[in-house]
């Protein structure tokens, strides 16, 4: 008997941030497999091996596979002989700043978050933003698909610590809504109730099922998103041994004056970026000196420009800057581009300060000094006035 028909197969991708969401992602990709098992489906999950989930903020992925008719071994042979997948029916995004793109490793460029979604598939994002704002940052597709928004802030915790804010079961409830063929909401809620021995968690899953908002993304909606095809030469096409061209030494004062690796920029690791009030800067050099990713470009007037393409959003510069309010970390999704803030400042200092204060807003996210406790939100009353003439 020949197998002519394509077997039933659903592929789910969970995009998460290294360290902060590792445990969360494993909860989700594991629990969704258990739930599918309850409905008699074949399912298993795996993690993308080449990822770096032990590095802060790095975009990583887990996968889960489901089938109604394949055996587990056949499903594994069919679905996961390779370390990454090319298509997914369901793409889960645990942090909405990932819609700005993913660069999990070098040479592959920055890939759109919806790269793998198939026609009529769904991208499920945990976010407090409107679908249109997110679609505006995603790749244009030739076919329609769906976007589903589960209201909520990105859930972040440390490597060992799991922050049980119910995001795990809420995402399960949302999956039941957008892809009921994986598991129904009743199955999910019953599974959650019995696994976690918690009525509240089951209720949270059901509530998420109701709360998740699904809409259609039409073909052509979104932005053009060019990314390089990785260069994978044949074995005769490169020199023996292996080396890649290094970054030439080069150093000039001013924005983008330092040479950096063009093949791996790391900037998609960030969920927030430092906004610098150049007018308050005392030129102490600490941000430039301490930035672990050497993101600051010294300028001839003693200020330090930020190259956001390479900034991983670690917050170190904001911690070391001795001047209050001079460097503040701000939600990455508030920004449209990676342009040099220094150039902007020099063009029109007054406007720059207004722009910076507007981005910073009055609500400041401050990382908790105790790991694993998340962050606190503090209110800042009035932004400091722009003092003319502090910087020449």
């Amino acid at each position, binding site marked *: *008997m*020949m*197998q002519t028909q394509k077997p039933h197969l659903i592929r789910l991708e969970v995009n998460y941030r290294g360290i902060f969401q590792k445990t969360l992602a494993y909860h989700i*990709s*594991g629990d969704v*497999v*258990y739930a599918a*098992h309850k409905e008699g489906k074949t399912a*298993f*999950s*795996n*993690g*993308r*091996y*080449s990822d770096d989930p*032990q590095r802060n903020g790095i975009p990583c992925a887990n996968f889960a596979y489901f089938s109604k008719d394949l055996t*587990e*071994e*056949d499903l*594994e*042979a*069919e679905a*996961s*002989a*390779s*370390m990454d997948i090319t298509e997914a029916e369901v793409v889960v995004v645990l942090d909405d700043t990932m819609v700005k793109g993913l660069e999990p490793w070098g040479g592959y460029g920055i890939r759109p978050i919806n790269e793998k979604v198939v026609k009529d598939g769904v991208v499920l994002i945990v976010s407090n933003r409107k679908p249109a704002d997110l679609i505006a940052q995603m790749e244009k597709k030739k076919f329609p698909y769906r976007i589903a928004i589960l209201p909520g802030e990105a859930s972040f915790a440390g490597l060992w610590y799991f922050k049980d804010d119910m995001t795990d079961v809420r995402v399960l409830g949302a999956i039941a809504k957008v892809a009921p063929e994986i598991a129904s909401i009743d199955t999910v809620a019953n599974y959650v109730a019995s696994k976690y021995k918690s009525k509240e968690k089951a209720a949270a899953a059901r509530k998420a099922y109701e709360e998740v908002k699904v809409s259609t993304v039409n073909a052509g909606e979104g932005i053009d998103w060019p990314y390089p095809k990785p260069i*994978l*030469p*044949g*074995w*005769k096409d490169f020199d023996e041994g*292996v080396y890649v061209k290094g970054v030439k030494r080069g150093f000039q004062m001013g924005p983008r004056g330092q040479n950096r690796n063009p093949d791996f920029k790391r900037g998609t690791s960030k969920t927030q970026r430092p906004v610098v009030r150049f007018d308050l800067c005392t030129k102490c050099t600490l941000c430039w000196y301490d930035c672990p990713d050497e993101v600051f470009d010294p300028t001839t007037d003693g200020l330090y420009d930020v190259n956001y393409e390479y900034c991983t959003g670690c917050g170190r510069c904001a911690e070391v800057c001795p001047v209050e309010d001079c460097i503040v970390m701000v939600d990455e999704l508030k920004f449209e581009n990676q342009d040099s803030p220094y150039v902007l400042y020099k063009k029109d200092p007054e406007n720059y300060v207004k722009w910076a204060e507007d981005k910073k807003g009055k609500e400041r996210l401050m990382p908790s000094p105790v790991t694993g406790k998340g962050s606190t939100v503090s209110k800042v009353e009035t932004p400091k006035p722009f003092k003319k003439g502090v910087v020449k």
Partner: protein
Amino acid sequence: MVVKQEEKSVFDREELMTGTDAVAEAVKLVDVDVFAAYPIRPYTGVMDRLARFIANGDLDAEYIVADGEHSQFEIGKHASSVGARAFVGSSGVGWLYAMESIGVTATDRLPLVALVGNRALDDPGAFGVEHNDALLVRDLGWLLCWASTAQEALDTTLIAYRVAEDPKVRMPAAVAMDGGYLTHSQHMVRVPTKEAVRDFLPTYDLGNRRMHPDNPVSIAPQVNEDWVMELRRQNYEAAKRSRKVITSAYEEYNSIFHSDYEDPFIEETNVEDADTVLVGMGSAAVVARSVANEMRREGKKVGFLKIRWYRPYPTDEIRKALSNVSNVGIIERNFAMGAPDDGAITMHDLQSALYDSKNHPRVVDFIAGLGGREISKKEVRKMFEMTADKKSPKVSWIGLRE
């Protein structure tokens, strides 16, 4: 999986686990006294889980983080010599860094159990699977086997302790598994109860050799040419004896845990009446079995033979299984530069096992899946077709970008 009523007592639960989770669970179940650690992917997976067991009070063991793999394996070796049940593990170049210690653990005849999460020997940097790391110990006096599913990883780790510690064997054992494919994939695993494992695995007893204040001994004294050859012969006999010990360990494992390991050493899928058989180890078996079944449904007489225990080598089993087969192809996730016929490592063992058998199947070799490159269904099918084709070359590279 349906757990029958009478089976309930030997299983604690079923849980979704990665290959490394399963190994960690086994290490907990054998109640190790010393766990030595040095992080490297994928061994980190075992470290994470064991740290949690200890933190939660589920396991009472010394968890020693070493300053490198060499010290890590020394810790395991020394623990083993004082009668402590120990576990170590690494992968790729980490395993190689420990090699001096690995060598003497074998010549000291200490029944340490280790995980080798197969990984390419970087440079260049690579996490993906290659079997060269584990295969480097094939002739050193280590028992060596491959697990290809998470369940098998748990079972095999338990069995490895039983075989290694048996007074008739007392050799270290390495359980190898493919980095990434098995170590990062989550499947349902049946977890035995502690009590059932206690029935299966006797207490570790090194006898007169156990180093203790009440039993002062000096292990590994300088013996030079006076004793070494005789010691080698002892080791040689122990390796031979281990075949029987492995067989009886699996028999008992099957009867206690109702598992169906038909042959401990090899696993056959449609081999009996096949014309063409592929042979392989590790996670490639999952894809190969699936394709072998699919091609059977198409009426093709193909089969797959998985080698589970590589040391001791299943000479008789291989001879018996492959004597009536016309074409044999080997999937090799390893390399052996400049070897006979320019084939990879396991071809040479397989060919020499077959040399004295009456029928020589034609043997071809496939170098595939190096550095974690995928071995897809399509490629397995191609290997079956090339194996059946008498005109195909002795050695082929599969999945290589030309």
